[in-house]
């Protein structure tokens, strides 16, 4: 990878939930520092409860940080940005809207004309192979198809940063592997920055340029690792690569270490 410029600069972000009048609250994140580069694919791995979702929501402007700043292109980020899109863990499609209308939601937020946004939504649905079910209600689709709609909804606004929160966590292994390849292909084609949360170490290695390893109590980043594997990854047998084996061991050791200390 050549030196890329920073798109999102996370500086000293902390988050305390419910710390008011006497209560100490939950320290979900403690002084996170991380630069997310233009066009990179970075994954967050770590145990449940280490603040991955919290950090993603702060980046998206859905949650205020307790302290610290986030710079987008060097400018302080306030509120929800039009250039950042979110793929939710629970997918959260509107059941009263059709698939294509769900994909249009971000374009509605931008005040695009109906004809224009339908055209764009169909284009993105075609990209994820779902143009055939555009007029269907979302609850008639399988879990994998629903998350494809979630991805299409985020892609529709042509984001510079794509935040994905354990998007394949609820899916079976076959579907998950297919979607990993699809996401990788989409990223190759569109070249936005992707921040991908997962607790699946292999998934992180397969997809990422870098992996940030989180730990909890308080939630923090303990290590950032480079993944020195060639792209495109779907053309190589990633788990068999020595680099993948080394990374896997390093990450699991870091996560296991914590358990041993606690015992």
């Amino acid at each position, binding site marked *: 990878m050549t030196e890329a410029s920073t798109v999102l600069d996370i500086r000293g972000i902390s988050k305390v939930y419910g710390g008011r009048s006497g209560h100490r609250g939950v320290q979900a994140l403690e002084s996170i520092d991380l630069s997310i580069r233009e066009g990179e694919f970075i994954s967050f791995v770590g145990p449940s409860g280490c603040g991955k979702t919290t950090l993603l929501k702060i980046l*998206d402007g*859905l949650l205020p940080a307790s302290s610290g700043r986030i710079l987008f292109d060097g400018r302080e980020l306030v509120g*929800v940005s039009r250039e950042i899109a*979110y793929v939710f863990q629970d997918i*959260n499609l*509107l059941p009263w809207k059709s698939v294509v209308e769900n994909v249009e939601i*971000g374009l*509605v937020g931008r005040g695009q004309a109906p004809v224009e946004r339908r055209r764009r939504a169909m284009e993105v649905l075609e990209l994820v192979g779902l143009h055939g079910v555009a007029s269907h*209600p979302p*609850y008639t689709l399988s879990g994998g198809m629903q998350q494809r709609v979630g991805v299409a909804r985020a892609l529709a606004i042509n984001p510079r940063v794509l935040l994905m929160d354990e998007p394949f966590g609820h899916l079976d292994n076959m579907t998950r592997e297919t979607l990993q390849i699809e996401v990788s292909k989409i990223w190759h084609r569109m070249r936005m920055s992707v921040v991908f949360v997962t607790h699946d170490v292999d998934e992180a290695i397969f997809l990422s340029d870098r992996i940030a390893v989180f730990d909890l109590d308080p939630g923090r980043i303990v290590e950032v690792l480079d993944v020195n594997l060639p792209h495109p990854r779907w053309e190589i047998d990633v788990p068999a690569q020595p680099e993948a084996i080394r990374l896997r061991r390093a990450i699991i050791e870091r996560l296991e270490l914590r358990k041993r200390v606690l015992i």
Partner: protein
Amino acid sequence: MAWQLYAAPMNPILLPTPIAVLADFVALVSDGTLVSALVDSFSELILGFTIAVIVGIGLGVLMGRYHRFEVVFDPYVTFMNATPLVAFIPLLIIWVGIEFPARVIVVFLLSLWPILINTVAGIKNANRGLVEVGTSFGLSEVQLLRWVNLPSAVPYILAGIRNGIAKGIVGMIIGEMDMALAGLGGMVAVFGDSFQTSKLMAVIFCTSIFGVVFVGLLGLIERRWFAWIKETAGSQK
């Protein structure tokens, strides 16, 4: 059948036979009295109820969405909902009279509160994940209401409407009995006072059918336009 056998030997003032009730029903229909009463009652109910739906949903959305509105209106809503509204009828007679507009107001006053209260609850209890989606994708306040909060409140609102129509029918009958005798309620009062039990029962059945038809119609609307309610029941958070 059981009713027919049980009622046959009894005094028809206490319990008329179903055959007698049916005969009276046919007679009341064919001489036109029942039909014109139905038209009277129906127009009161529809008018009062429609206004209640519009006001209930409109005010409910404002109260559910904007704290300022809630603070202002909530005490009145709580008060009115806890008051037996029938007690207002003499007051309404003094203020508005006993004719059609007064009876429409009675229907309105009885059916409004369940619709209003349910709308407020529905708007407030919108699925948090879906609200987050709307916010994340940059919807404005009005867009968020139209795309997320209002549709999300539809199951609550429909339940409120179902309850509201039942109360509205009660209001309609009471209004017609206590104010100027008119419509179905008027017939109930007249036949009741003159011990024409079989005619009375024919009219009462007619009112029940009224309620059943409305609830059935609501079910139809729900299945036709809000199929997602059944499909996603239980999965909403």
